[in-house]
């Protein structure tokens, strides 16, 4: 059984962009141009997506409550591991730090996981619905990005209370908040984690232009990602050369890196250079995604009529 991030079955199909057209204003108005109009356009997509997200609240709450079970069992498991080892330091992680790390990776994944993004893109290619982005004045990647930002905003806002409560209960595992500079770096690493996650998965989805069915590829990538991003355990625990290899890959920015920033295990120049590297990966994946999209469109033949 693969972890929940992996099944593309949880995919929410992105609603049609013309959901925004229900606004009478948008139907009759002539196309407006300029940056202000563009901001308005994507802000409206964001609002519609927010409303959509809040429709099934009971369902959402049950999901949030269930989501705490793995946290509890993980804490208990690691306590048993440290007790079994009979010492309070495994690969530089004290027991408290380990739990703090595992809690923090959930925050990282809250930003970087993109359920259903790649599968959604591949579906649009396969079913031919992608053409709506070609005939409407909206850029697909821009649209998906604002849709995703809305989902993340809604999700993070809704989870703020339960997560706040959880971190309050678990405050004993933390040494308080880090200083403002670290906090700022942490926030930056999270925002970049979102971008790395978004553009990475979107790029995987673009492969759908060449292979009409990518869900299988996606399952493999996401299953591997669960481990190599450091979601299950700190990469430092792995034997060399694996720890070194995994820390050189971009996947660590989706779970491991933000957590160790918060725990002040990466500081000074190392922190700055890693943030720059994370930015570079985000930009790199963005360029890759754009390039694949352009190349894919040349092959695209709008099946499905």
């Amino acid at each position: 059984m693969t972890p929940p991030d992996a099944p593309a079955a949880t995919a929410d199909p992105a609603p049609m962009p013309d959901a925004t057209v229900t606004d009478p204003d948008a139907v009759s108005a002539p196309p407006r141009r300029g940056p202000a109009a563009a901001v308005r356009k994507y802000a409206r997509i964001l609002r519609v997506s927010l409303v959509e997200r809040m429709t099934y609240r009971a369902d959402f709450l049950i999901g949030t409550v269930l989501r705490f079970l793995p946290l509890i069992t993980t804490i208990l498991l690691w306590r048993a591991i440290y007790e079994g080892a009979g010492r309070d330091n495994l690969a530089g992680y004290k027991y408290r730090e380990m739990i703090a790390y595992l809690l923090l990776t959930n925050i990282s994944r809250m930003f970087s996981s993109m359920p259903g993004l790649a599968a959604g893109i591949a579906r649009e290619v396969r079913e031919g619905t992608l053409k709506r982005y070609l005939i409407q004045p909206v850029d697909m990647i821009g649209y998906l990005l604002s849709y995703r930002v809305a989902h993340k905003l809604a999700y993070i806002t809704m989870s703020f209370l339960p997560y706040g409560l959880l971190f309050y209960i678990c405050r004993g595992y933390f040494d308080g908040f880090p200083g403002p500079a670290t906090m700022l770096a942490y926030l930056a690493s999270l925002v970049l984690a979102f971008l790395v996650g978004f553009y990475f998965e979107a790029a995987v989805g673009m492969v759908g232009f060449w292979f009409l069915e990518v869900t299988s590829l996606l399952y493999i990538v996401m299953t591997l990602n669960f481990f190599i991003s450091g979601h299950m355990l700190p990469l430092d625990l792995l034997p060399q050369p694996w720890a070194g290899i995994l820390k050189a890959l971009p996947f660590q920015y989706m779970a491991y890196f933000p957590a160790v920033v918060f725990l002040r295990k990466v500081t000074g120049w190392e922190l700055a250079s890693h943030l720059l590297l994370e930015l570079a990966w985000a930009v790199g994946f963005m360029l890759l995604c754009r390039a694949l999209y352009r190349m894919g469109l040349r092959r695209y033949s709008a099946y499905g009529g």
Partner: protein
Amino acid sequence: MLASLSKYLRMFGHLARYTLTRELSMRGNFLVKVSVEVIWLGIMVAFYRTVFARTSYVASWSESEYFFFVGCYFALNGLIETLFLENCNEFAELVRTGDLDFLLLRPIDEQFLISFRRVDWGTFPNILMGAVLMGIALVQKGWTFDPARVAAFFVTFAAGTVIAYSCMLVLTSLSVWLVRNQSLMEMWWLFTSLARYPREIYKGPWAAALGDVFTFLIPILLVSNVPANVMVRVLDPAMVALTVVSSILLLWFSRAFFQHALRSYRSASS
């Protein structure tokens, strides 16, 4: 009684053969599904190898015992996924679209049809992979053959499957009221995180209470723990009896709950 049992068995045979034919018509997809499960088992093994490189015991389980437990969980979960997960996962969609009507009209037991409609052959190899892992663990432990343990293992393994299925059926039935259930796959993954680790990790004041709740009230902790325990650790007849009795009670309860849910179904879309 016997006639209807053989009718249902025959029907299950036909359904299984039909889904196998469908599955084999898309062999590439089948192979990818299997390789994802192989990767996942590889990740679990890598994780616990990393852990056991730094400790010899986790919650009083030695490495070989623990790997037997992992294999047992993997096989049992594979069996559940092969038989039920996909079917139950579709139930929410049947409720939402109103297509459940078509299934309710058929002249056979609704629970049978909803639970066994499809066999997900893609996860079938998980049972074998789990068995291989259990076999390796037994060899590493230097286990000597004991028919009593083997018999107790198969009985509790079957009872554990029944318990897990009953829990899944209750979760599935909830979607009649929730209308859009978050994918059951995800709910199930979160719920089974309780069964994924040995029961001995539930130590300390609140954790012990939690462990008791999930042993006696919602007995999900009996699912892979008891079969693994009777095979490689202690053969405790009381635990075997508890598991069997729990499975019967829970199966009865989940069936009643499912039928209650069906009575609340309002066939929204037709």
